[in-house]
C-alpha cells in the first residue's frame, strides 16, 4: 500500500526547524575552543585551555562526583518505590487506583518552581533538628530529586506492566505461587527492560536537575548543574562550553548506540 509522504514544502520547513534545534548545540563548539578567558569566538588560534580547566579545577570534579552520588541514591530509591507501587496497582487493582496514580504523578505536573518552594519548606523544616539531612545537604538533595523523579519512574513501569499478559500471572497464581513469587519470579523478569529504563531516566533527570536544586542548596551541596548555573549567572565562564561539548558528545553517542540496538532487536 502506498503511504502518504510529506511534500517539498513540508521538507523545507522541517529542515529549518531541525537547524533551529541543532544550532545552539553546535554554537558551543567554537566557544569551547576560544583562547580568551571570556565568552568569545576564537579569532585565529584555538586552545584547549577550558578543557584543561575542567580537569585541573577541583570544583568541577567534586561537583561531578556529588551529582553521580545523588543520582545513584535518588534513582535507586525512586525506582524501588515506583516498582512496589506499580506492582501493587497491577496485581491487586485496588479501588481508587486512578486517584492514587494521579496523586503519585503530581510532582510531574505541578510547575517545578512550586515543587521547589515546597521542597525548600520541607528541607528547611528538617534542618531544624538534623544537620546532615536537610537544607543544603547531599541527602536532602537526593530525597528532593527522588520526589521529582518518582512520577517518571512510575509511568515507565506502569506502561511496561500494561503490555504484560495477565494470563501468565494468573497461571502462576493458579499453580499456588505466593505474592512474593509472582512478583519476583514471574512479573519482574518480564518488565526488566522497563525497570532498567526507569532507573536510567531517574538518574538522568537527577543528574541534570536544576530548578529544585537551586532552591535547596547554597554552599555545600553544589551539584554539577548548580556549578554551571553559578558560572552562567555571574560572568560567563567558557569552561561551561567545554563541559557542554563533552555532555553533548556523550548524549549523541548514547542515542546512536541505543538506535543501533533498537534496530538490531527489530531485525531479529
Amino acid at each position, binding site marked *: *500500500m502506498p503511504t502518504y*509522504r510529506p511534500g517539498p514544502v513540508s521538507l523545507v520547513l522541517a529542515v529549518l*526547524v*531541525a537547524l533551529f*534545534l541543532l544550532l545552539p548545540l553546535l554554537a558551543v563548539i567554537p566557544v569551547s575552543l576560544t583562547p580568551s578567558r571570556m565568552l568569545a*569566538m576564537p579569532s585565529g588560534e584555538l586552545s584547549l585551555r577550558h578543557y584543561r580547566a575542567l580537569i585541573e579545577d577541583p570544583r568541577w570534579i567534586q561537583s561531578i562526583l556529588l551529582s553521580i552520588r545523588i543520582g545513584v541514591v535518588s534513582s535507586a530509591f525512586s525506582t524501588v518505590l515506583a516498582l512496589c507501587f506499580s506492582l501493587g496497582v497491577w496485581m491487586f487493582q485496588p479501588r481508587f487506583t486512578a486517584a492514587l496514580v494521579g*496523586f503519585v504523578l503530581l510532582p510531574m505536573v505541578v510547575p517545578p*518552581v512550586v515543587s521547589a518552594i*515546597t521542597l525548600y519548606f520541607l528541607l528547611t523544616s528538617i534542618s531544624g533538628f538534623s544537620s546532615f539531612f536537610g537544607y543544603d545537604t547531599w541527602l536532602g538533595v537526593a530525597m528532593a530529586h527522588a520526589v521529582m523523579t518518582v512520577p517518571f519512574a512510575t509511568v515507565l513501569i506502569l506502561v511496561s506492566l500494561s503490555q504484560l499478559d495477565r494470563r501468565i500471572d494468573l497461571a502462576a497464581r493458579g499453580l499456588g505461587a505466593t505474592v512474593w513469587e509472582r512478583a519476583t519470579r514471574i512479573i519482574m523478569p518480564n518488565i526488566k527492560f522497563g525497570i532498567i529504563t526507569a532507573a536510567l531516566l531517574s538518574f538522568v533527570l537527577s543528574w541534570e536537575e536544576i530548578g529544585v536544586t537551586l532552591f535547596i542548596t547554597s554552599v555545600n551541596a553544589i551539584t554539577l548543574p548548580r556549578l554551571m548555573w553559578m558560572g552562567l549567572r555571574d560572568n560567563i565562564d567558557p569552561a561551561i562550553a567545554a563541559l*557542554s561539548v563533552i555532555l553533548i558528545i556523550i548524549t549523541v553517542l548514547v542515542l546512536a548506540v541505543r538506535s543501533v540496538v533498537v534496530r538490531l532487536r527489530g531485525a531479529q
Partner: protein
Amino acid sequence: MRAYLSERMGAALLMAPLLLFLVLAYAWPFLGVVKWSFTLPTPGLGQYNALLTDDLVQSVFIRTLRIAAIVTVVSVAAAYAITVVWVRGTPAQRIIAEFCILVPFWISVLTRAFGWVALLSNRGLINTWLQGIGFISEPLALVRNEFGVIVGMTHFLIPFAVFPLASSMRSLDDRVLLAARGLGSSRMRTFWSVFVPMTRSGIIGSAMIVFVFSLGFFVTPAILGGGRSVMIAELIYLRIFQSPDWGLGAAISVVLVLFVGALMALLFRYVRPKQLI
C-alpha cells in the same frame, strides 16, 4: 476470606511506601507553603490582596501569559513541521528527524540556554558574524530581553510539543489522505482540509503541554532574560531568596498551582491522557 484479606494486605504493603513518602515529603510541605501564604508576614489575606494590587506582580503575570502564548504558538507550529517528517517521511528522513528531536530533548536545559547565549550575546556567533560581513556596526540586542527568552523557551519546548502530535499523526488512516488526493485535491488542500483537522487532539494536547510548561518556567528565562524579563517562576525565586518576602512567594505559588490545575482539568475534557504519550 483469608485469601481476600491477604490480597488487600499485599496491595496495601506494596503501595504504602511510595504514598507515605509523597505525603510526608510533598503533600505535607505543600500545605506548609499554603500556610505561609496566609500567615507571613502577618496572618490574613494580605498577600493575596497584594497580588491583586501590586503593579510589579501584575506586570510579571501579564508578561508570563504573553510569553507563554507566543511560545506556545511558535513551538507547536515548528513541532508540527518536523513531526510530519518524523512520522510520515521516508526511513532516512525519519532517522534524521528523530536525531534532531531527541538530541536536544536529552541535553540539559542549562547547556541549551548556554548555547543560545553563545549564539545571541553581544560577542556571540551571530553578532560577530554580522559585524564581520559589515552588515551591522553595533551588536544587536538579541539576549537579556524578551526575544532571547522566547527563542530559548521555544527551543526547549519543541521536543515536548512533538510527542502528542506524533501520536495523533501515527493513528491517522493513510487511506483517507490517498482518497483525498485521488479525488483531485491538491497537496496543500489535502494537508489543510484533511490532515490538520484529523490531528486536532494532538494539536490541543501539545499546545496545552507547552503552555502549562511555559507558565512555570524558571531556568531559561532567568539566564536569557538576564533579570530584565522576569517571569512568574523567577519572581517566586526572588521573593524567597533576594527580598525575603516568603508570604508573597508562597501566595504566587498557590495561585500558579490553581491556575495550572484549572488548565489541566480543561485539557482532560478534550483529550484523554493516553493520547498525550
